[in-house]
């Protein structure tokens, strides 16, 4: 196992900058998730760490070793591909043993490790099948097994769950988490799915347009987003944003007056800003509610429901607890704890409570 350090990595594809100066420091044994929308450069960063791409600038360190220009086979990393990339002409057993055989591992040791991995992943009965004879979930497991059997210094996952259906995805998610706990390995995981990102990560790295937007423990990133981009990306349904005037520790707009915790914001605040409120932070309060939501669509989920509507002319979603389900056309009065109100600069999108970038 090893730590991973990425310093000032830049990469262009043609004239197109993909990575624009990435710095990362991942501790030994840490599970890091790279998350971001399509095209943000997360896969390119992962491939650069794997050695499949070479950066134009910057260095990649594995432990203390500079591997920036080293070919993949000298890095001792394992990668799980989105397509699984199982060798179709080999059986599961041969797929699992492939990397070990290339390294001329002792055959007895190869057998032992294949047995161990297949027990761990519950694929012992599949060992003599070919990839085409298995379901998507089984293939995914074999792909992970192939990485595990190698006992690499670093595991790389490139959206490994995106080809699975929802039920299977949450099941495998748990398994990956357990596997990380068992192996204690350093893992770098790329996804665009914020649920995976939140649930799996020790450290979350949000990428936007080739740069690290924010990194840290997932809950910290969730609760203290440094920008409107991060705030919008994490959480489902996404955070609501309403623009209004700031005055007397409250943001006002048509149909709404939002109090905020002024102690969090240092220095002078601009006269106008964007307030961010997560749907989950809203409570129905017919008496004190300073927010008037006109409901247009309701999504009942059983234990909760989501009311989609508008405040003034700005869209807004609220999470409602329990069985009280409003009808479209109803008007709800809502209240928000001032400590849960985020404020963002209306032009740059930076959080007003964040330190200057």
């Amino acid at each position, binding site marked *: 196992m090893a730590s991973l350090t990425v310093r000032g990595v830049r990469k262009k594809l043609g004239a197109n900058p993909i990575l624009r100066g990435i710095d990362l420091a991942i501790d030994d044994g840490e599970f890091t998730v790279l998350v971001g929308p399509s095209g943000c450069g997360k896969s390119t960063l992962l491939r650069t760490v*794997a*050695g*499949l791409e070479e950066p134009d600038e910057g260095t990649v360190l594995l432990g203390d070793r500079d591997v920036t220009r080293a*070919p*993949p*086979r000298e890095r001792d*990393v*394992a*990668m799980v*591909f989105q*397509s699984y*990339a199982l*060798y*179709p*002409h080999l059986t599961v057993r041969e797929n699992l043993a*492939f*990397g070990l055989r*290339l*390294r001329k591992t002792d055959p007895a040791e190869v057998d032992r490790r294949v047995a161990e991995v297949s027990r761990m992943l519950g694929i012992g009965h599949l060992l003599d099948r070919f990839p085409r004879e298995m379901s998507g979930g089984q293939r995914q497991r074999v792909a992970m097994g*192939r990485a595990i059997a*190698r006992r690499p210094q670093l595991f*790389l996952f490139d959206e490994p769950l995106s080809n699975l259906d929802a039920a299977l995805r949450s099941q495998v998610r748990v398994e990956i988490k357990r596997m990380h706990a068992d192996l204690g390995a350093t893992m770098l995981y790329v996804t665009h799915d914020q649920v995976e990102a939140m649930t799996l990560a020790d450290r979350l790295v949000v990428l936007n347009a080739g740069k690290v937007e924010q990194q840290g423990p997932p809950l910290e990133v969730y609760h203290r987003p440094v920008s409107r981009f991060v705030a919008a990306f994490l959480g489902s349904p996404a955070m609501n944003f309403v623009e209004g005037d700031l005055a007397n520790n409250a943001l006002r707009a048509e149909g709404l007056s939002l109090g905020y915790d002024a102690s969090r914001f240092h220095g002078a605040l601009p006269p106008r800003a964007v307030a961010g409120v997560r749907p989950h932070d809203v409570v129905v309060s017919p008496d004190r509610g300073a927010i008037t939501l006109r409901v247009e669509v309701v999504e009942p989920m059983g234990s909760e429901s989501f009311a989609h509507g508008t405040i003034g002319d700005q869209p807004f979603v609220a999470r409602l607890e329990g069985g009280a389900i409003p009808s479209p056309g109803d008007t709800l009065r809502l209240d928000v704890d001032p400590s849960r109100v985020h404020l963002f600069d209306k032009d740059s999108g930076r959080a007003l409570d964040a330190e200057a970038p």
Partner: protein
Amino acid sequence: MTRALFLALLVALLAWPSSATAQRLRLWHAMRGDEQAALERLLRAWREAHPGSVVEVLAVPYDAYASKLESAIPRGHGPDVFIDAHERLASYQSRGLIAPVPEADDAMADYEPTAVKALTYDGRVWAWPLSIKCVALYVNTRLVPGDPPATLEAIEAMRATLPRGVYPRVRVAERVLPRGAPARLQRRDPRRARRYTFVGPEAARSLQRVIDMTRAGVIPEEPSGALVSQLFSTGHAATAISGPWLAAELGDRVPYRVVPLPDVASEGGRPMAPYATVEGAFVSAHSHDPESASLLARFLADAPGAVVRARLGHQVVANRGAWAHDPDLARDPLLATFRAAAARARPMPTNPAMRAAWEPARQAILKALRGDMPPREALEQGLHRFEDVTRPLPRRRDATFALLILGGLAMALVVAALRRSRDREFRVAIRKSVPAYAWVAHAAVIVTALVVAPLVVGAATSLYATRNGESYFVGLANYWDILTARGGPLLATGSFYRVLLVTVLWTAVNLALHLGLGMALALLLARPALKMRALYRVLLIVPWAVPSYVTALAWKGMFHRQFGAINAMVTALGGEPVSWFARFSTAFTANVATNAWLGFPFMMVVTIGALAGIPKDLYEAAEVDGASRWQQFTKITLPMLRPTLGPAAALGAIWTFNQFNVVFLVSGGEPDGETEILVSEAYRWAFTRQAQYGYASAYAVLIFVILALVSRRRAEEAR
């Protein structure tokens, strides 16, 4: 009803005129250029003289001429009159294709005796003599000013005075039949008809003479018709022995004159006697109107016609009256010289066995010329080869037994079918699938007609002994002959097993090269960094797009010992020029090089397609797993290509196994038939060894059986 009647009437009317013209005559010839123009002029004159008479003319390519005649005439759609050389006279006569010239004794008085003699067989004259063709000596007057050399020795002596790179003389190896009559087949005596005389001290002496001259640089090595004309027309040959056709090619590119062949001082000053070919107008024995046909043939040969042919077609006409009639003809130096040469010439023998004599004689002469064997031994070997080809056919066998077996099989099939058809379920099933049968019916009919029927006929032919049209049932005797190597050693040159070994080696080496080259180039083309990939791809597919015989002929030229591009490169690199077709190893290499060139694009295209189907992330996965470039190739690329390349390789093996064009055109079996493969060997038996179709069919059936067994085996393995 009325309409049907009307239609019937119309059809009858339209058919009327064609059945009414008894005066319709068909004429076939293989002439070209000026000769053809002269013939057409004559035919116009004939039509003017015989209004109402229709002459349909068909120009047939020379290569297919004889076989077309042989198959068309007996079936009644051949010509009434045809023009051909006298060499095949005996063969036509033995098949009853031609009618003799009536009252020949009087009519032939007007013609050159040489020509009449050539057209006489079995005591009768079989065609109206048109022209005599033989060779004479072309002399380059710039290189040899003054009197032309009178003797062979004088030409040999010119070597010392000519500039470097200029040959005193060129001529075609196959025509090397100098004085001394090495080849003469007794024509009139059927009992001695098969005597082969390309053997004996005289023949050996003349051959030795040619070898000496080649060694001394008097004549170039490995000459061919094209080389003769090339060397002489570019001033690289002082003299050339050739026929009137060379004059047509030369134009005024080089100053020359033509003189009769020189004498040979060492043989007592006797003149070199060339062989002559006499062209005649033959009348078909199956003509609808023999009288008119005979008139037409005579019209073509007669003096007035002969003058037209001589003037317009530059023919050395056989009609003596023409020369008397038009004194201008004798003043034409070319015509006069060839006429003089013809007077000394000896007509080419016309025995049917002659056609079987050429191949072994040619092989023997070439072998001796290359110095592989002393002339005498080479000629003796030729004799054995000749005897092998003309060996007595297997004993006639009673076909009753075979017919009984065949009948029994047919009966069993019918009984089985009947029994099956009583089964109710089967009948229901059949009725249900009637529409399906209707859908495939046309395909089944076509496949039966084009594939199954020829196969069955071919297989049936292999049970017959055939030679020059004669044919009778011999059972499995052909197979027995082939599989016992005709009683000789099992691995002797030309034996089935030897040829099979060569064929297997040929297939294996070619397939390895095709796959290796094709794959290597496909991998190169697959590199994303490669610029102008599309261009390279097109260029590399070109060898495949060019017809294979064109490529084969080009490569044959490149392998020429003296003038080929390959030897030019070898010499430029400081090596000795190689006689590519003199030894098995080099001749085989030449064949393989040609076929590799022809075959790799297919494998390349297949590989490119298969490579495109391998996902890129497999390579990335392997790379991350620790595979080197080479390991990625052996562990990912190769196994992933296998499902596609396997069937392609099987196809390639079958194509190569039967690659007739390359073997036939490049090495032509040289040296001495050693590079022959099974198909080209079968071809030889059918088309150059007295039309032994039965024997050739047996070869073909054996090839089919071998390929069927091997591909079946492969299919089982693949499963």
